[in-house]
């Protein structure tokens, strides 16, 4: 399968001893010139990369308050050192959040601070050399921007912000990452991450209508580009065909059907994920997001609902209003945007859905909080609603639910290991190793409570787990969409 060893799941979680440099070799493929250029970056490493990089760093320092504050404030207390799943899974010290920040901080100190200019050795400042740039390329692509470290830092230092800056500088000198940049250019050209053109999308949706009809005998629609629909659904393109994602999409469609609310997908903006956030580039993130505003206006919808996708929800919840708002053309009675879980939960609370929990009796379910939902966004109107609402939905549709250990869920949740633009085969080793803490917690509830399935609300989590679960002795179908559980329990037909 692969030329690395899957870490062993021990009885208790352990903090590994440092093994310097063990993950230095792990690097993603470089972006091809045409994808770099489509995003406004140079095609390959520019000659004066050093100046360009320092200039870019200077520019970012004046654009994002997080950077100077985070780079200055770290006291090297070490509280974050054992909080990153990539460090726990690989033992490479540069995967400790503070050390990952230091890769950039050392250079910041050298060029932008008095202490680093005059006493570089004392404060650990270094010149920007090719070796440093190489380290950036390796280790800023071993961070899933999951923000777990930020929860535990006494100053809230968010390594994800540093990683984004690091990647943006790399892209600006011509060292972009293939996976993310290629996808963003596909979104610009075709409308979604997969490069799925409109006719193919239409076909797929028709296929799904037939499938549901066969299953339930009911005409559940999967509408595309329907002007005047009430709801525009923005969902990750994985939902259109891959397992287990597609069962989630079927779940949403059934919920819309039962609620009697008209909805549509858009072929122009058929993708929720916004990989702009992964490369830290504001312009690209805005440009990717803008398609959604345009689609909503064009279709004349009243509400925008976002499907099960972690980073997409973070961008939608936290950034859309800033990037592409104001949403004054939508119905002000609903939050803009709204998460599909908020929507379904609201229907459940109002008793608008008939649910047969026993349909899920063959499953014992646990819930994986996806990091960007857990630590970067919210649902409902109270802090922490994003932890409560999905669990309440699961409990409303399943009889058997068990949470994993308290310090591995909620705000302290462990990343699946594949977020932040790492969901690519060239980074398989870091993905598998980074999944270790989550696998450990999962194994615990499997043994203690006989858990059979882990539900999630993020396309990346679902894809990542399908791939890495087998490495740890689980089966790939143990990961499941929350809305598959809903769809399975939903009693279709006229309300009883």
């Amino acid at each position, binding site marked *: 399968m692969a030329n690395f060893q899957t870490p062993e799941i021990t009885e208790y979680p352990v903090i590994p001893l440092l093994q310097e440099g063990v993950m230095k070799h792990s690097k993603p493929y470089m972006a091809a010139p045409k994808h770099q250029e489509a995003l406004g970056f140079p095609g390959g490493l520019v000659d004066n990369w050093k100046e360009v990089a320092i200039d870019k760093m200077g520019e970012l320092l004046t*654009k994002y308050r997080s950077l100077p504050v985070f780079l200055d404030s770290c006291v090297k207390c070490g509280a974050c050192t054992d909080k990153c799943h990539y460090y726990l899974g690989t033992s490479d010290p540069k995967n400790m959040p503070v050390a990952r920040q*230091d890769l950039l901080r050392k250079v910041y100190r050298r060029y932008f601070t008095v202490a680093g200019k005059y006493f570089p050795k004392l404060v650990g400042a270094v010149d920007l050399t090719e070796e440093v740039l190489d380290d950036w390329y390796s280790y800023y692509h071993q961070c899933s921007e999951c923000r777990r470290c930020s929860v535990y830092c006494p*100053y809230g230092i968010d390594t994800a912000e540093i990683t984004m800056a690091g990647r943006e500088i790399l892209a600006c000198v011509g060292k972009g990452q293939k996976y993310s940049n290629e996808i963003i250019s596909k979104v610009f050209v075709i409308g979604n991450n997969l490069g799925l053109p409109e006719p193919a999308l239409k076909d797929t949706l028709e296929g799904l209508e037939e499938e549901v009809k066969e299953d339930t005998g009911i005409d559940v629609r999967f509408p595309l580009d329907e002007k005047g629909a009430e709801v525009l659904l923005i969902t990750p393109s994985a939902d259109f065909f891959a397992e287990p994602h597609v069962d989630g999409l079927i779940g949403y469609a059934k919920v819309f059907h039962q609620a009697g609310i008209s909805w549509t997908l858009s072929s122009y903006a058929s993708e929720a994920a916004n990989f702009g956030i992964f490369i830290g580039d504001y312009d690209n993130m805005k*440009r990717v997001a803008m398609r959604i505003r345009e689609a909503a206006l064009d279709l004349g919808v009243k509400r925008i609902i976002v499907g099960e996708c972690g980073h997409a929800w973070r961008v939608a919840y936290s950034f859309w209003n800033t990037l592409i708002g104001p949403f004054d053309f939508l119905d002000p009675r609903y939050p803009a945007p709204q998460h599909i879980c908020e929507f379904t939960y609201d229907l459940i609370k109002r008793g608008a859905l008939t649910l047969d929990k026993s349909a899920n009796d063959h499953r014992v379910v646990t819930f994986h909080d996806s990091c960007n939902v857990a630590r970067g966004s919210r649902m409902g109107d109270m802090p922490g609603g994003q932890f409560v609402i999905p669990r309440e939905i699961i409990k409303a549709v399943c009889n058997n639910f068990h949470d994993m250990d308290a310090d591995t869920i909620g705000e302290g949740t462990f990343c699946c290991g594949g977020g932040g633009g790492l969901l690519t085969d060239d980074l398989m080793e870091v993905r598998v190793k980074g999944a270790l803490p989550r696998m450990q917690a999962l194994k615990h509830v499997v043994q203690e409570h006989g858990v059979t399935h882990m539900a999630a609300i993020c396309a990346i989590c679902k894809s990542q787990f399908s791939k890495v679960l087998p490495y740890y002795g689980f089966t790939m179908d143990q990961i499941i969409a929350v809305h598959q559980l809903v769809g399975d329990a939903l009693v279709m037909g006229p309300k009883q």
Partner: protein
Amino acid sequence: MGFLSIFYALLFYLAAGLLVVGVGSKIVQYARTPAPLKIPTTPAPTTRRGVVLRIGGEVVLFTSLFKSNKWIWLFGWIFHFSLLLILLRHLRYFTQPVWWWVALIQPFGKYAAFGMLFGLAGLWARRFLVDRVRYISSPSDHLMLALLVAIAGSGLLMTYFFHTDIVGLKAFVLGLLYLDWQPLPPDPMLIIHLSLVLALMIVFPFSKLLHVPGLFFSPTRNQVDNPREKRHVTPWATDASPTSGN
């Protein structure tokens, strides 16, 4: 008035000036740099009041640190709390008459030096004993601890062994404040203690001690979680062209 007194008087003004201007300009830099996107770490408060409580909890109780590592929290908190008591106790050298509450904490402040040393010792031990913390420590991290230990140590020695001319010291300090310079008692331990404190004031704006203002400007902690309710805009970001790159 000897050379020593004049030298230390000038050094005091220099250090105070550097501290105020240095930290002040950092605060201005932080305040002026926009935070273009909402990035509070959740679960984040949805009101301004909630944010004040959140930051207050971080300042007074070190809540996030408590969540992450009980040992660092214990040593860190004891060190900082002792330092606060000690600083407040030292106000008696700067006020005439001494405020009643400064007099009240005076006896506790004296013992706080032991707390400070205890906390610092714990933090320093971690830098040697825990391989992860050893890896991330640079010489300046050790130096900073050494400086603080030396300040606490020299202070303690003065309190218990090498008593200094407190009345003379207070006259010197008040003289600095009222621009009516008085001689500095020439006790070696006092001179050492004073020099170390001045050094700390001077390095403050150039070192990781910037975590003090940084704490208040950290966007992950000080932002209100209300991006759907309230549009958050920043000039450079609003002007950013969404079609650039084409």
